[in-house]
């Protein structure tokens, strides 16, 4: 058994200390150590985006991040989007527009959509489609996801 290492991270605003295998993936640490199972594994090879989170303000595929790289990082997962029971505007739009069908791509998709709207508050349809192209969805054909993101933009953006 390889030696375990201890690291600190801030996850969804809470400081956490975890003792883990040094080669563990950030995805597994979030899901198994911190029990934040909202973040999903769809492929484990950086292709599907189901594991998307924000790390230090940037979108990453957590299945590709060795946990050692997250030492001291500020991490936001899907569980960090709502304020208590109050959904973020992006979550609310996904609910209203049926942007989540099976819901398995949804956590990653919500993180990417939130990031997109923060970077680009008034995206065109083309910009939305390009901006979400790293998150695969097999259920929706993306139509309702695009509708939801457009609605948030029209309504004043992700920060609202």
């Amino acid at each position, binding site marked *: 058994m390889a030696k375990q290492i201890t690291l600190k991270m801030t996850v969804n605003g809470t400081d956490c200390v975890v003792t883990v295998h040094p080669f563990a993936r950030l995805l597994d640490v979030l*899901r198994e150590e911190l*029990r*934040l*199972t*909202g*973040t*999903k*594994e*769809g*492929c*484990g*090879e950086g*292709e*599907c985006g*189901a594991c998307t989170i924000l790390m230090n303000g940037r979108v990453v595929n957590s299945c590709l991040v060795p946990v050692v790289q997250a030492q001291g990082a500020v991490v936001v*997962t*899907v*569980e960090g*989007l*709502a304020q208590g029971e109050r*959904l973020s505007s992006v*979550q*609310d739009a*996904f*609910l*209203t*527009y*049926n942007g*989540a*069908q*099976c*819901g*398995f*791509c*949804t*956590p990653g998709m*919500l993180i990417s959509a939130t990031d997109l709207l923060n970077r680009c508050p008034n995206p065109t*349809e083309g910009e*939305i*489609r*390009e901006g*979400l*192209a*790293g*998150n*695969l*969805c*097999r*259920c*929706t*054909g*993306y*139509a*309702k*996801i*695009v509708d939801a993101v457009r609605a948030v933009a029209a309504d004043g953006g992700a920060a609202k």
Partner: protein
Amino acid sequence: MIGASSIRKEGRAKVMGTACYTDDKFVPDALHGVTVRSQVPRGILKGIQFGEGIPWGEFTIVTAADIPGTNRVASVVHDQPFLVGIGEEITHPEQPVVLLAHPDRRLAEKARKAVTLEVEERPAILDIQASLDLEQVIYGTHNLLKEIRIQKGDPEAVWASAAHVIEGEYHTGAQEQMYLETNAMVAVVEQEAAGLRVTVWGSLQCPYYVHGALKQLFGLPEGQVRVVAMEMGGAFGGKEDYPSVNAGHAALLAWKSGRPVKVVYDREEDLACTTKRHPSRTRLKTAFDAEGHLLALDVDFVLDGGAYATMSPVVLSRGALHSASVYRCPNVKVHARAVATNTPPPGAFRGFGAPQSLFAMERHMDVCARKMGLDAVELRRKNFLRMGDTMATGQVIREDLDLGGLMDRALEEIDYHRKRTTFAAANDSQNPIKRGVGLAVFMHGCGFTGGGESYLASVAGVEGLADGTVSILAASTEMGQGKNTVFAQIVAEALKLPFDMVETAEVDTDRVPNSGPTVASRSTMMVGRILEDAAISFKQALVQQGFLKEPYTADGFREAVAKAVATLGSVKCYGQYHRPPNIAWNDATYQGDAYPTYSWACYAAEVAVDLDTYEVKVEDFVAVQEVGRVVNPTLAAGQIEGGVAQGIGWGLWEEVTMKQGRMINNQMTNYIIPTSADLPQIRVVFLENPHPAGPGGAKGLGELPMDGPAPALINALENALGPLRLDEVPMTPDRLLGRYEEVTHG
């Protein structure tokens, strides 16, 4: 309530990340189970070696010799073993042989690779033609998993005298469901006074299929097996029959180890080993009179069924029954066969055989129009089924069917005629981008084929709860299609209650009756109708027992239910499927009403092909359909959009590459599904025509959108590029280049 775009019941949990999928279930002390597979397509298993460097004493190891009950997966035919035993035949390269479990997932993975199998290899059959040619006999006497014949009139008597006789051959490839959540199962086996008790929680479409499979595997009675459906990350048919296999594996490991076991496939294993859409080959021969009226149709339809029957008999049946598409034809002969090969068995995938045979026929109609010098739209219009017409099985169209109107709506939406003219002019230029529009008209039978619904005799019910709300009891699962929401709308409408007063009960075989599998576009129409009946009986019972007076308010109903529960302990009402009186089916002759009704559609696509790269871009897509009354327009549109996206993927990009019977591009990087940037906004139009058999007039719609995109796209490609041999999907850039070179280089 019916007709409202009510918000998805489990939507809030899904956007908050709290919805609990199988691998999210916290199971203390769980072992991780892995599967050692055969690796060769055909041979006899002679021995199993456990290699050096693994602490085998820490492992739970299961082989065929351990199985307490019957080593056969309960299905249409009980031919597939859970594990191949020593001395037995290996029939495909992903066949499970040994199961291993260990607390450390990494070590379990390492151990899997340290097991080697001694196999005496035998020559394998790897494709349809080799199987038909009986190069080796690998299944029964003729490699046939199922054979079906349908006959109406006599096509043989027509060929000689017809003005036009046109033949064609069409091929479709395998397709992966690519649900975002891979197959996953958790099992616990307890020793109780009454004997073993087996429980599984999993990602599965059909709890009672898994229930039946576990009973047979362990030799247990009804009450000793429990199956719970967790939140499901997509299925599309891919979790219809396969979960009987991996649930069995997880349960065997849990039984032998005495600990909970999780079996979660990684993407590579899921892609390589689980079911896909059946590859197909269709030969069509058609006769027309001088004006283009269809006089005779001969269909030779063959599916590659893989090593075991699994769902092939029923997939073949649906394919055969859709092979004449939406056309009136006095003389039809259909010969359909599912043949065995030494490849992992395909299974259910949205559309279930119909996309394959409809691709052939809808593509063939365009080819015939070109060869006869007729317009493809007008050729279809001349031959559409109408009320009073008879289909190949003798089924009479009893509804007021206006396929011409449906088609015109799609043509108008996509601006078909104007585009045909302007594109034709522009395509003559030197510009490497060529544009085209094309369409397909098609139908999808609602519910189980033939006598299937009568055989299932599904039961579903409603239960009053102590707080006065109503719970829906059905084994139908939520896979994202929206059944939680639609069932609640149907029951709320029947009881005249607000949507919030009705919820669906957790799908747990200890609690819900067998409402049949969640497949075949049957949940809304078939189970919904049973629920509508059960809800009305429930209300009548409350009235008869003196708890409720009509008319009532929501609060009045709530009080009545609460009081009834307080007085009687439990209040439930069940309904059961009843065959509508005018429906009859004979399975021996394949004559009668193949489906209680059909949903109908016309899809139109616009494509742009770049002759420098042979990339095809879908510029516009219009989906017009008649699905009875639409229960929830937003959810229904979501089903159509998602199905169209899968259909576009199948038509243009999604290719399963096989080598020696194994899928070799089994990674998401190498198997290409559409991204948001690859698709246009799909335009969905519903034409409503309420059908008396469905709840509130609804019909099925989940599979329909898979049937039309491929032929519409390939017809559009032909419009862009002129006559090429466009007879196969997926029409990838490589394949398209090859077809183009056939013409340019002779």
